[in-house]
């Protein structure tokens, strides 16, 4: 079999890249190891009759220009922005809700603190302005430091100009906040501990870092930039779960003439005189191609699939040093009924994200456990109950609770994940009991996915949700590391297009979209 481009991995980025390459006139083949496409954006039956977005449970959201370019609605993509966007129950029985509309959030906040209510609109606006500028950064191909290329420099200059147009005030804030601990950022704005925690949580999500770790504000800002820059954060639920999103991408790709194969596990890359010329599948089938785009994480691509002799030994060392240790688990619960949160008067407040983490110290202590290789005793939880907006995911009257759990470090100090996965479920349910008494008795089925499962089942090294820590030293042109940050690699014909490249994780399709642009440029 022959193709123009082989895309390894049928996750959102692989599919986005393939669809755009096909739209650009090339003939891509997507090879997905599992029996379903979607990678970490899948809807799976985890218990008879109960389906959930087993890994990621909210969309990044997808980059709007991608949705438009591929006309994804036509391929069945439907999403909702639930109100409230996020609901944070407090142990004392009060609940804090943030809505898409800042005015409504502010009036909600008035019950907690007048100053916070007064500051919220300014916070929302500041985040919006910064996101508008950073949003441009996410669409850029990081420049080549050694041999700057006008193709990159123009958009970069555009970004620089936008940055200056932000004005002194916002610009200085951006520079000051970027490297700051998100705890400081949140507390610069707000005094209510619960609100500070809700905001700080966005800085630590998907990071092996606590709210007091420097650089976590950058994570929050980039996340905001990928979304709408709303003060309430980004909560995008997809009808049918995230699997529906990736099947829409797959169908768009097919529509443009791409071939998408499942149960097609790539064993190694074909290498001929210093270039990658295709792939070899398990079972020996060879597929020749002008280029190979790896939507699997950089370590998979460069250490397992590529014969590393093709790389400079220093680069091999740098790939190894790319930090990919995961810290999050997923607990998917099949519930016989809707849990009653003491802080929630009605089910309406449970339609968005549910944040569990009363204050910043609670989040930091959860991190402390993990720092030393332990499972957080009282983890930070980000919960969705997708059945409230999409009942089709569970039998009538029953519910799915999708729980994102942090921290559960990939490297445990004692024992192995297969032995200890149960402890995660236990810790989560014990914690949830405090907020929603009786929830335990509603559980009819459960699935625990630890970093170990994410690595073995979903194939991400270290089980990292973003294929690599989104820390300051692993962002932009240093993602995965300097010299490999432009989707190209020193090995001719081999490209990277996974979340392990700029602009990183979250189900946005950003890396795939940027990479496709570069591949099209090189191949045509």
């Amino acid at each position, binding site marked *: 079999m022959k193709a123009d481009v082989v895309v390894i991995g049928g996750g959102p980025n692989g599919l986005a890249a393939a669809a755009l390459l096909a739209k650009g006139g090339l003939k891509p083949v997507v090879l997905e190891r599992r029996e379903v496409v979607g990678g970490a954006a899948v809807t799976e039956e985890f218990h008879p009759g109960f389906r959930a977005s087993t890994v990621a449970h909210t969309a990044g959201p997808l980059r709007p220009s991608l949705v438009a370019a591929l006309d994804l609605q036509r391929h069945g993509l439907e999403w909702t922005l639930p109100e409230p966007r996020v609901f944070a129950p407090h142990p004392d029985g009060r609940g804090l809700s943030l809505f898409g509309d800042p005015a409504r959030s502010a009036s909600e906040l008035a019950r907690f603190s007048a100053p916070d209510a007064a500051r919220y609109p300014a916070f929302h606006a500041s985040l919006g302005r910064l996101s508008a500028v950073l949003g441009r950064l996410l669409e850029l191909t990081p420049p080549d*430091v050694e041999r700057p290329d006008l193709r990159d420099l123009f958009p970069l200059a555009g970004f620089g100009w936008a940055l200056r147009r932000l004005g002194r005030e916002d610009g200085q804030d951006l520079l000051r906040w970027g490297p700051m601990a998100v705890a400081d950022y949140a507390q610069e704005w707000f005094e209510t501990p619960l609100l500070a925690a809700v905001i700080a949580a966005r800085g630590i999500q998907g990071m092996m870092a606590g709210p007091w770790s420097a650089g976590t504000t950058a994570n929050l800002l980039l996340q905001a930039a990928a979304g709408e820059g709303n003060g309430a954060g980004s909560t995008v639920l997809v009808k049918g779960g995230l699997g529906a999103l990736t099947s829409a991408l797959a169908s768009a790709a097919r529509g443009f003439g791409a071939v998408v194969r499942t149960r097609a596990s790539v064993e190694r890359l074909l290498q001929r005189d210093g270039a990658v010329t295709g792939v070899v599948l398990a079972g020996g089938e060879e597929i020749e191609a002008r280029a190979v785009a790896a939507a699997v994480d950089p370590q998979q691509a460069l250490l397992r699939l590529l014969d590393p002799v093709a790389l400079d030994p220093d680069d091999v060392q740098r790939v190894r040093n790319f930090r990919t240790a995961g810290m999050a688990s997923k607990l998917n619960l099949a519930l016989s009924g809707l849990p009653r949160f003491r802080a929630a008067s009605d089910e309406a407040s449970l339609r968005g994200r549910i944040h569990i983490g009363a204050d910043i110290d609670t989040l930091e202590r959860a991190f402390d456990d993990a720092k030393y290789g332990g499972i957080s005793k009282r983890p930070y939880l980000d919960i969705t109950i997708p059945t409230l907006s999409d009942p089709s995911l569970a039998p009538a009257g029953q519910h799915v609770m999708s729980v994102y759990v942090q921290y559960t470090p990939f490297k445990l100090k004692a024992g192995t994940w297969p032995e200890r996965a149960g402890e995660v479920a236990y810790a989560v349910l014990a914690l949830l009991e405090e907020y929603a008494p009786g929830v335990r008795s509603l559980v009819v089925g459960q699935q625990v996915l630890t970093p170990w499962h994410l690595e073995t089942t979903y194939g991400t090294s270290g089980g990292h949700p973003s294929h690599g820590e989104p820390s300051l030293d692993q962002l932009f042109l240093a993602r995965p590391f300097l010299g490999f940050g432009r989707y190209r690699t020193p090995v001719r014909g081999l490209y990277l297009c996974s979340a392990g490249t700029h602009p990183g994780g979250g189900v946005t399709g950003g890396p795939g979209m940027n990479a496709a642009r570069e591949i099209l440029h090189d191949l045509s």
Partner: protein
Amino acid sequence: MIAPAVSYRMAARMAARYDAIVIGGGHNGLVSAAYLARAGKKVLVLERRHVLGGAAVTEEVFPGFRVSVCSYVVSLLRPEIIRELDLPRHGLEILPLDGTFTPMPNGDHLWRMSDHARTRREIYRHSPVDAEAYDEYARAMVEMARFVKPILSMVPPDPFSYDVKGLGRLAGLGQRFRKLTRGQQHSLLQLMTMSAADLLDQWFETDVLKATMSASGIIGTFLGVRSPGTAYVLLHHYMGEIDGAFRSWGFSRGGTGAISLAIAGAAREAGVEIRTEASVARIKTRGGRVAGVVLPDGDEIDAGLVLSSVDPRITFQKLCEPGALPASFLEGVSRYKFRGSSGKVNLALDGLPNFTCLPGQGAHLRGAMSISPSVEYMERAYDDAKYGDFSRRPYVDIVIPSLTDPSVAPPGKHVLSCFVQYAPYKLREGTWDEKREAFGDTVIDTLAEYAPNLKQIILHRQVLTPLDMEREWSLSEGNIFQGELSLEQLFFLRPVPGWARYRTPLAGLYMCGSATHPGGGIMGAPGRLAALEVLKDVGHGGAR
């Protein structure tokens, strides 16, 4: 002879007798004064305490024992300052501080010396791989330091100004970055953003080696060795090597106070008038610009220029008249983070500590002794502080200056000084006045675990908490660097974004202390750069 008070009044009567008044007689204030005077300005330095030096001070805390009370080693005193002020002629003498000794609970130890071959053998003993990596690491660090060093003598450009010169300097940095090899760019990027522990993990496997090296990354910050942004400070230890002027770390004969006195000597020679026990109550403004200072007794001293070497909180929130500064600037000042995280324990000893893991009075006592047995130990010390307690088992950096400089203690007796982290300024329970001695005991107990004889040989002990540093040395929240050296408070962001160029919104008022670029440590660079900026604004020569 007239009483000082009288001479103050005379000074007050003679309006504009001074071109410039420097608030604070610490090393930075004195450096500024010296440079201004050498440019023909008539300068007055006002020091609140009875001794000069600020935190770089030697005091006879116990009879016969002269102690470098706060800052205890010379790190990065800028060679250009030593040269331009001819400090050796004014008595500056740096004595080498040889090596770092880290005792370990398992009875082993790590002892790095300036003798490269022996250090290599020592590290080899712990890990052959690390012995190899150690040289490469040092090479890489020196290269990085060579890149970073010029920044220490650079006035931070303002990326949001249209000041072409400044932007040019910024672009120049970019150009120099581009000229580095990709390997160097990679390392530099990591140094500027990573945590000390993560960075060292990439180089070494020996836990105690990583722990001891990473310690330099946290000093004076409220960060742990695993907090991003701590790697950068590792560079500082290699800056000295390229200065060439002298070893990067050392004692000054007569204690760190002798450095301040040498600078004071140079300043006086240039015509600077220095007063001690002369605190300032207020900075006087007239017609929207600085007009001088007001003393506690109401006397006034006029001057068109005032340079404050005390930190921004004191300068702008306490000394400046309300309304003298724009609200936005004051908001920036109130956001500036201090968060003192360290304490000092100074001991007068009737002998020398005897380490179980390396008995006797060997050369290991002449260098720094570091209580940093493992990275986890360091990180747990930080965890305690995060929640408002001092570390149950702190990181301690110990020196015995009397071994290198016998002049500081009576014959046969010794001075032992401990830098202790973490001691958070804000305690969750109780006050530092209640907990001072408990803190001191914790430090002594920690040391005694490695040198059991210590408790028997203590003659006197002085415990300094962050609260004491704030009270006695006017260091807000007891931060030894006049404000945290965290990424968001460095270079053009220090101390307030847009005001990193030593000037302030109040015409005639300048900052010249460690709260300005390039920050703390006995470096003198802020004082020098501030003075040079002042001279750019007002020109050389006396007031006319």
